[in-house]
């Protein structure tokens, strides 16, 4: 096979058949697609292939090297596990969204040029919005709208940056870009938004807890990690990423401690884990890049496992807040066990997968003599154990007895959790297969007595702090509350902006209508003329003047939510963006 079949196409084309199939046949089909895509990736020839000409540009769908392969493997693996987890669903929309989402992620991973990258980037954004909308609650619809706006902004930055970059550098190559001019800065902002870099992170803890039970599993795996892959390729050794990453490992843990929604705790710890990866990219040495890939691989599995076990609780009990849960181990011991395996892995306990991957990054930071970053990562390691490692299992499955006696989740969910838990433990005990797929040769052994003991001390004495604080009552109590994040700056002024736009328009309209009425009264003496004039005025104001906004409205009506202004606000936000694109296009060349 000279020209490989892009694995993204398997998913995107495969999506079409989903609604035509039913029952067991559909289940089998949903599981076959990731398997076929996985086999396809194994057969892909190294190097760039599957290129097509589009206008004057070459689109490369299959750029295969060790970096893209490693991410390709784990994306397919988690899609398979996620599909098993979602099999009980009778919701074609979600299945199709999840498959296209995975297709988008694989497309980004194997893209060889910036335009292909951008296309699949937007496929991911659209498909993931559906996974929030599919929750079908008022809250989720509003969250989906905000999520879409964030990613729309990121996508516009990326597109503007790519166009400028192509013009100035004369290449569309998706390779090391380096931060040097406005074009690369815009691309950087677009990527960083998807990697949830502060202060562009607020969409993540906002949207993930509101996504569907199964959708959150895919979302936790694909969006941020494909951004990590892209940043590792385009901006390695970037100092901004090093410090942004270090900051990202630390600030979310404070939020995670006071968050009440368990999936929000996990969302904040997801940002913390991506912080580790960005630190590795910021260092950029072979050891660090190995650490990034290894950590992304393990992280995808254990984070999905955590989202699956908390999702199972949400699925069975309908509750996800710490204030509503507790004592569930009594009737859900299997789910509790899976959650603990995920918690131990994310905390990097020896013999669990996080340990063998996080060590690489931390060692690379030490090797680069970044003392402050190293201390921050160590603080974050203790902190992540504190909230994701202890808080999540403790408040859901132990803690005070909530009186809830729920059954274990359906078989397919248990199998999916079991598979993820197995991988976490297997890679923790035997990391050789993971190290074998890393981009650079690995000479690293995580299991030295000093390292194991150091990590155990760090974690266990962190646990001691937790025990003492809980027993003494100093631990911050679980409260039902909203904790403000950087999205406050958009949400409230954004609302003010929209009503600001509304008010003068409304005022202008009513004053015009008042004048029209005055004129019409004058015409009353000439009935025939007045009818004609009234009709034409009516046509002028209500048909001609509103033709453009009305046309746009008609197109975006299907986005209708319970809030009527939605269509209007989409329009207000769309128009400046379109103006921005044109401004860039006209002024730049």
């Amino acid at each position: 096979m000279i020209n490989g079949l892009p694995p993204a196409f398997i998913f995107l084309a495969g999506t079409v058949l989903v609604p035509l199939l039913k029952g067991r046949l559909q289940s089998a089909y949903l599981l076959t697609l990731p398997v076929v895509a996985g086999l396809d990736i194994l057969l892909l020839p190294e190097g760039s292939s599957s290129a097509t000409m589009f206008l004057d540009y070459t689109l490369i769908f299959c750029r295969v090297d060790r970096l893209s392969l490693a991410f390709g493997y784990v994306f397919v693996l988690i899609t398979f596990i996620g599909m098993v987890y979602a099999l009980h669903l009778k919701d074609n929309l979600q299945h199709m969204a999840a498959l296209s989402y995975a297709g988008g992620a694989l497309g980004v991973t194997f893209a060889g040029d910036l335009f292909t990258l951008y296309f699949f980037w937007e496929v991911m954004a659209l498909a993931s919005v559906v996974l929030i909308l599919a929750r079908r609650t008022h809250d989720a619809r509003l969250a989906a709208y905000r999520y879409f706006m964030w990613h729309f902004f990121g996508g516009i930055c990326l597109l503007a940056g790519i166009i400028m970059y192509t013009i100035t550098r004369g290449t569309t190559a998706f390779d090391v870009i380096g931060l040097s001019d406005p074009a690369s800065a815009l691309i950087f902002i677009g990527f960083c938004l998807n990697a949830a870099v502060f202060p562009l992170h607020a969409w993540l803890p906002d949207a993930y807890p509101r996504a569907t039970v199964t959708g959150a599993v895919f979302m936790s795996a694909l969006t941020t990690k494909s951004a990590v892959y892209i940043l590792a390729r385009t901006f390695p050794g970037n100092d901004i990423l090093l410090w942004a990453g270090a900051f990202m490992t630390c600030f979310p843990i404070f939020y995670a401690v006071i968050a009440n929604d368990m999936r929000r705790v996990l969302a904040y710890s997801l940002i913390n884990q991506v912080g580790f990866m960005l630190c590795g990219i910021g260092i950029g040495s072979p050891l660090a890049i190995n650490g990034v890939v290894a950590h992304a691989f393990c992280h995808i599995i254990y984070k999905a496992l955590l989202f699956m076990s908390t999702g199972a609780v949400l699925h069975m009990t309908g509750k996800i807040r710490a204030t509503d849960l507790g004592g569930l181990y009594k009737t859900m011991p299997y789910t509790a066990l899976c959650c603990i395996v995920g918690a131990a892995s994310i905390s990097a306990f020896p013999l669990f997968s996080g340990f063998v991957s996080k060590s690489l990054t931390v060692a690379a930071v030490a090797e680069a003599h970044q003392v402050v970053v190293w201390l921050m990562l160590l603080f974050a390691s203790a902190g992540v154990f504190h909230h994701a490692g202890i808080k999540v299992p403790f408040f859901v499955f132990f803690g005070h007895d909530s009186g809830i006696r729920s059954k274990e989740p359906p078989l397919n969910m248990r199998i999916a959790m079991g598979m993820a838990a197995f991988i976490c433990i297997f890679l923790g005990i035997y990391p050789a297969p993971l190290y074998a797929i890393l981009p650079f040769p690995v000479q690293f052994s995580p299991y030295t007595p000093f390292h194991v003991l150091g990590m155990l001390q760090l974690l266990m004495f962190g646990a001691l702090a937790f025990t003492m604080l809980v027993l003494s009552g100093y631990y911050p109590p679980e409260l039902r509350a909203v904790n403000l994040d950087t999205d406050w700056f958009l949400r409230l002024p954004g609302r003010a902006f929209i009503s600001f736009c509304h008010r003068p328009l409304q005022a202008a309209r009513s004053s015009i209508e008042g004048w029209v009425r005055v004129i019409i009264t004058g015409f009353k003496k000439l009935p025939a003329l007045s009818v004609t004039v009234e009709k034409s005025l009516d046509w002028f104001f209500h048909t001609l003047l509103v033709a453009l906004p009305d046309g746009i409205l008609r197109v975006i009506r299907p986005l209708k939510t319970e809030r009527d202004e939605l269509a209007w606000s989409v329009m207000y936000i769309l128009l400046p963006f379109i103006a921005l694109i044109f401004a860039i296009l006209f002024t730049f060349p």
Partner: protein
Amino acid sequence: MLPKKELTFLDSAKNRLRVRRYFYISLVILLVLDLFIPKHGHFAWENAPSFYAVYGFIACVSLIFVAKILRLLVKRKEDYYD
């Protein structure tokens, strides 16, 4: 697969105390082991006795107190955005 009866192991105070006791014993073992293993820390302070234990404990305590302060700043009513 599904348990017919509930697990009630942690309901009794005696068992909870027992779990905590094993936990404290493991902490002591970690501190004792620290004296005997060869150390090859990258930074000098890593080789100080029980550096990681002290750092982990301090990190988690300060984490909680900073989080409490953060809560004072950012906590709002649940319907704040509605």
